[in-house]
């Protein structure tokens, strides 16, 4: 995949970080839009949506979570939260706010590039993927990127959609968190399992009739998750 021309919005109040990230990412071939606060970020994004958004959690005024939610309202664009703390609450809260992934400062430019690439990539179906999958009330149009549950269109983010396709292309097969991290996020074994857990939770609230008692996206204790046909 070429990175040329792919526009990335970075929301960061620290001018030096903004400048260095821009330098490094542009060296990698991405095109960078900058915003020094949340309001500006939302303004830029609503005028000309970018393909990826990078949001620092600690921002003056609107904080990173609020910016993330606002942009999520507008688009299913991949969002990466950036945190300067290992505070586990921050990370989970960022994911709950709709982020697709997170990075902890100081992250390396190569790592950031890898994250962005993984998020932009569509789920690769193993074997010949069927463009349309149907499980009871759940319809998945893989080629159109569309999902409907009980006849109603469901709006999924790109990562949620990729996750669902990964599970749906192998119904009943149990995927460990590590497998899903690798296939959906491009992490190796050592990725953070909470990414999977939070996304599964979000997916359930969108496609399950009773998210507390899921009937499609099932937890297999100690192993991972599977899609029940």
């Amino acid at each position, binding site marked *: 995949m070429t990175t040329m021309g792919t526009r990335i919005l970075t929301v960061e109040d*620290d001018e*030096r*970080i903004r400048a*260095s990230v821009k330098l*490094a990412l542009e060296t990698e071939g991405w095109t960078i839009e900058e915003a020094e606060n949340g309001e500006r970020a939302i303004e830029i994004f609503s005028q000309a949506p970018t393909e990826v958004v990078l949001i620092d959690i600690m921002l003056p005024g609107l904080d990173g979570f609020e910016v993330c939610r606002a942009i999520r309202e507008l688009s299913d664009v991949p969002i990466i939260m950036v945190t300067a*703390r290992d505070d586990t609450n921050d990370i989970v809260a960022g994911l709950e706010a709709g982020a697709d992934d997170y990075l902890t400062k100081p992250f*390396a430019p*190569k790592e950031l590039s890898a994250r962005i690439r993984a998020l932009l990539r569509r789920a690769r179906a193993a074997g010949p993927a069927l463009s349309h999958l149907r499980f009871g009330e759940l319809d998945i149009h893989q080629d159109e990127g569309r999902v409907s549950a009980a006849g109603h269109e469901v709006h999924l983010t790109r990562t949620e959609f990729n996750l669902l396709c990964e599970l749906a292309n192998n119904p009943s097969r149990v995927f460990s968190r590590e497998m899903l991290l690798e296939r959906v996020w491009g992490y190796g074994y050592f990725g953070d*399992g909470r990414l999977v857990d939070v996304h599964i939770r979000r997916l359930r609230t969108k496609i399950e009739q009773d998210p507390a008692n899921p009937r499609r996206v099932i937890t297999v204790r*100690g192993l991972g998750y599977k899609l029940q046909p």
Partner: protein
Amino acid sequence: MEPTQRQFGLRTRIVASFVVLSALLALIISLATYLLVQNSMVERRESIATSNAFANARLVRELLLDEADHGFSDGGDSAEYLPRSPAFGVAALRYGSIVQHTTSNFIDGSFNPQNDLPPGLQAVVANHQTAIQRVRLKGSPVLVVGIALRVPAGERTLSADGPSSPAAADWAEYYEVISLADIEQALRRLATALIVMGLSATAAGAVTGRWVSHRVLAPLVEMNSAVHALATMSFDTKLPATGDPDLAPLVSSFNHTVAALQERIDRDGRFASDVGHELRSPLTTLTHSIDVLQRYLQEMPVPAQQAVALLGEEFDRFRQLIGDLLEISRFDAGAQQLQRSPLMIGELVRHAAHLTIPDCVSVSIDEDLEDVVIMADKRRLVQVLSNLSVNAQKYAGGVTEFRVTRVVGGVEIAVLDRGPGIAVPDRRRIFERFSRGSTAGNRGSDQGTGLGLALVREHVKLHGGTVEVQDRPDGETGACFVVFLPANPVSIYDTAEDFEAAGFGLDP
């Protein structure tokens, strides 16, 4: 200074005091009661018996005098002088050759006043005096009253050749033996009752002592558990307010201390977090800037290339050090939390082994651990294994084997190398911060942060486990780091109930 004697606890001393005090009181009261009752009973019996005896004696004397007037027909022996049934016991009379006694069921028939009555008493009475004595007669307690009766028979004796007069003497000896068995029995019952009461009082004293000591020591016990909780960094421990004026100052100063400590630790925690945040921002800028520099390395003059290479290397180490410092400062602030998730322990060790040294390291995993899942923090376990590998790389030429075994209460991960091994005295010390191997001092190209093993210990401790260095089990040179993780391993083929029981409830 060490106390040389064994000290008894406060509780023991309080209870003992109560026991001793109540036993002493019970003893005094019992003794007084017993003696008072005994005296009054015996005295009463004595006075009645004595006055009765004197009345009887007067009667006997009258009869003797009467018989003497008649010149003691039949030698006086045929006459009955003694009362037929003395109120309390046996009566006996000796007057010259006349020796008579009655019988009673409380003394065997073989009663012989001459032998059975106390000789001392007989001597006193023979000496014309009255005597009272308490003795045991054939095993039963009796009161013997001896009365000397003056019978001036001599004046009335008619002739020397008449019927033999018993009145060789002017004096008769009259004895009454009164049984005290009923009194003795009553006193024995009283003594039994008093002993039972005394023991009960002592027991009650012990119970009261326990209760009192419990009441008195309750604040101490409370304080002890509070201090204990404090030692485990749980600062929400507070002693409940008390109205007791003796305890209030202690409670208040304890709570103040806890609050001050809490604030201090919070401040330190905040400081570490703030420092972390403040450090991470410039580090991010530096990371990205150095990356750009390295990308254009080829376009730089040679000295600049060398400088950038040095900068890059040293920066990596600096970044690692900051990361480790921040991590360990979070342990100090007590702000660390486990992110437990179900992990296939065999898979984890294989990945970690592969990540650190891809070549020629053997990984052996107990067969029955292959499909087993434990609840643990993946990031921390990976760091533990990675730090142990880095350590082996630095000092021992690298890890040669990872070995995972199932042990009682959990799993054990052994990390083996073929280095020089670690001397016994160093085996604890190496887990301390910034302690380096005995070859330390010479930093050379040392890439470590000095915190690797300290972090290993902290991570393992957070899991409730232990880490230690041992000799290689095969006896060859080298070190064997053994990490024990308490866990309830569950096979992936087990039932959902087994997972619940193994604490997998956190699993979303």
